[in-house]
């Protein structure tokens, strides 16, 4: 195909959008509806994943030392743990700090009750490391490994919390995959039907083109351009709407349910849409391309 013909077909694709206004609007509406649902689901899933990830980061392993372990040795143990790839961070709390935290938490309203322990730290020997992991699923492995380190007295971990979060992650994965597959199947079905109706209406046009000697590519190229444009617009419209809605929804939820502040943090719109925009655009253009390609080919045998 000559370059001039390529641009001619490209222009025809744009013109076809306008020539077949009803069909274009129906197709754009179909894709928009699917991408809109996809976008809502995507925003929910990405936020859930983020909340779970934050929760994972708050479930540490606590490491206590043998009686008489020197500060030097504790430091060495801390460095050894921090060097492990699965460990995200290590935070040291001395016995004095632990007692101070305890007093702040339980005796803040009755400081007199703690006064009796002024010279005698009841939590002596409770110097510890809080070990935070990159992935909560590794908790059992890392805990077992830390227990083997010389000088470590005991390791405490929250298996229930770790397992719950781990299972929740897997559940989100399955549900996401399931819903995305259903949405994709519905989109392809709807767009294929819409394009079929559009092409059937234009079957005569295709036949005329073929009778006067148009090559297949000359016939289907403008349809492909048209399909991809429909997909692009069909994705761009709901994305704009979703952007505004997402921002408003986050503000509304945080205002209305102030109890959630501190418990959950919603991802900023920029972060969500940095991932959602390319995904939705590729999805929209892809659906438009596939829908046009498959149905146009069916009607080319004239």
């Amino acid at each position, binding site marked *: 195909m000559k370059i001039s013909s390529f641009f001619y077909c490209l222009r025809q694709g744009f013109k076809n959008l306008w*020539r*077949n206004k009803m069909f274009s609007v129906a197709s754009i509406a179909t894709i928009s509806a699917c991408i809109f649902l996809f976008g809502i689901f995507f925003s929910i899933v990405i936020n859930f994943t983020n909340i779970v990830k934050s929760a994972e980061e708050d479930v540490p392993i606590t490491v206590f030392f043998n009686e008489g372990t020197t500060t030097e040795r504790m430091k060495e143990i801390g460095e050894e743990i921090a060097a492990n790839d699965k460990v995200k961070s290590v935070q040291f709390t001395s016995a004095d700090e632990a007692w101070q935290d305890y007093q702040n938490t339980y005796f803040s309203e009755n400081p007199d009750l703690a006064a009796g322990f002024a010279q005698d730290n009841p939590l002596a020997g409770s110097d510890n490391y809080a070990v935070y992991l990159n992935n909560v699923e590794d908790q059992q492995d890392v805990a077992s490994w830390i227990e083997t380190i010389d000088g470590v007295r005991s390791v405490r971990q929250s298996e229930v919390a770790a397992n719950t979060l781990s299972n929740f992650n897997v559940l989100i994965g399955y549900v996401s995959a399931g819903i995305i597959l259903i949405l994709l199947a519905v989109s392809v079905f709807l767009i294929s039907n819409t394009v079929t109706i559009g092409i059937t209406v234009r079957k*005569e*046009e295709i036949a005329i083109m*073929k*009778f*006067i000697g148009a*090559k297949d590519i000359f016939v289907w190229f403008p349809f492909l351009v048209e399909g991809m444009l429909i997909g692009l617009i069909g994705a761009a419209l709901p994305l704009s709407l979703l952007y505004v809605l997402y921002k408003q929804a986050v503000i509304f939820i945080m205002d209305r349910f102030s109890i959630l502040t501190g418990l959950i943090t919603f991802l900023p719109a920029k972060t969500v849409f940095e991932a959602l925009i390319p995904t939705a655009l590729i999805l929209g253009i892809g659906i438009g391309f596939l829908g046009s390609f498959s149905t146009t080919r069916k009607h080319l045998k004239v």
Partner: protein
Amino acid sequence: MIHLENVSKSYSKDIEALHDVSLDIEPGEFVFVVGSSGSGKSTLVKLLMKEIEPTEGRIVVNKQDLGRLSRKRIPKYRRGIGVVYQDFRLLKDRNVYENIAFAERVIETPGRVIKKKVPASLAMVGLAQKYKAYPQELSGGEQQRVAIARAFINDPKLILADEPTGNLDPQTSWEIMQILQEANERGTTVLVVSHNQEIVNAMKKRVITLKKGVVISDEQEGMYINED
């Protein structure tokens, strides 16, 4: 120009549209194909356009054996044939100029050439002033002239006209036949499928008569044989 050798076409076991048809049409001839409904006239046009395949037999058009023509080469083959249909078959969403230019676009003619050829082609059929009009804004006769201008734009060696006057009044029908006659005088082979007894008899051309898929008559300066 056209060579049919024992050509048969069946759509199903019981329906044979053409049966053992053999005929030759020489370059520069003007031929009418006549016959009642169901005689096989349209099937003949479809076979010549390679829209359908014969069940048996061999078809050669413009030295090309259609049985050996690959799907990829069909567009190029069709560009050598100008087709005119009863229902005009114009692209309704494009104006007169664009309809004719499209036939040039598909063979990738440069834009500057198209700009020269289309007005000349429109002038030939007397529609130079209406190049901006859309098909639905034109009369039947004008639409058929646009279709003829489109059919002629690539200087085809063969014109296939399937009932070109079927939807037109007598005066317009004669005007259309006049355009086809002039093209034939310039050397183009013209094959017209027609029901119009008056025109067929008046023009005194070769007439091939089909009945139930069989050629029952083939005469130079022939007459319309009324089957009814």
